[in-house]
């Protein structure tokens, strides 16, 4: 159930140059979204973009800086919803920069997706329970695809 989005992109620019575009608010606005990001662990900020009513999204992404290793790693939480303080999607964005061939290999992992209504439930379960739940879901999934004869 924990799916992740993975992307890798090579830039012929050194890590320090790419890092600027990931951590300078004005530069980020040029390619990503309007924001009030600051490269400080714990800093809460927002990305703002056009709303998508058919996705129940008001256009604001709520984030909090989780980890910073200058020129190497950056991660922040990424939450969004329909507005009024309601959060439907919770996830984590992780960037890694690796020096390569005089350029930079930029690795993005957007993962740990959770739908909020279910988060509360899963948060109260310990790891053993979560494993069992996964087994049950897999079993039911197999049954619904007609691969089990009972």
């Amino acid at each position, binding site marked *: 159930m924990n799916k992740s989005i993975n992307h890798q*992109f090579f830039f012929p620019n050194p890590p320090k140059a*790419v890092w600027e575009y990931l951590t300078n608010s004005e530069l980020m606005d040029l*390619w990503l979204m309007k924001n009030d990001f600051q490269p400080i662990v714990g800093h809460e900020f927002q990305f703002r973009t056009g709303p998508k009513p058919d*996705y129940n999204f008001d256009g604001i992404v709520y984030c909090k800086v989780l980890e910073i290793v200058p020129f190497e790693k950056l991660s922040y939480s990424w939450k969004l919803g329909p507005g009024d303080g309601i959060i439907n999607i919770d996830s984590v964005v992780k960037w890694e920069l690796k020096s390569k061939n005089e350029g930079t290999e930029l690795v993005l992992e957007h993962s740990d*997706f959770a*739908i909020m209504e279910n988060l509360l439930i899963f948060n109260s379960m310990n790891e053993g329970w979560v494993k069992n739940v996964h087994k*049950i879901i897999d*079993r039911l999934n197999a049954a619904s695809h007609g691969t089990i004869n*009972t």
Partner: protein
Amino acid sequence: MLLSKDSLTINNLAENFDMSRPAVSKHIKILYTAGFIAIEDIGRERHCTLKQDGFNELQKWISYFDEFWTSKLKRLDALLNNKLVN
């Protein structure tokens, strides 16, 4: 024992895991509350079926963000390497 082909009974689930029936019931209840499964009582058995809704919304968002990041990274590339005409 009536079994529809795309659902499983709680007994059936318990047989397939090394888990007691009450333990399976407990997990099923949690999954049910979270909206991942539907439960139907057929005769004396409780039948559990997977509900796609919970998974589908997540999948929709994951697909959306996958394309989102692809296009953003291309913009970053264009920016870093002066390919964009501003």
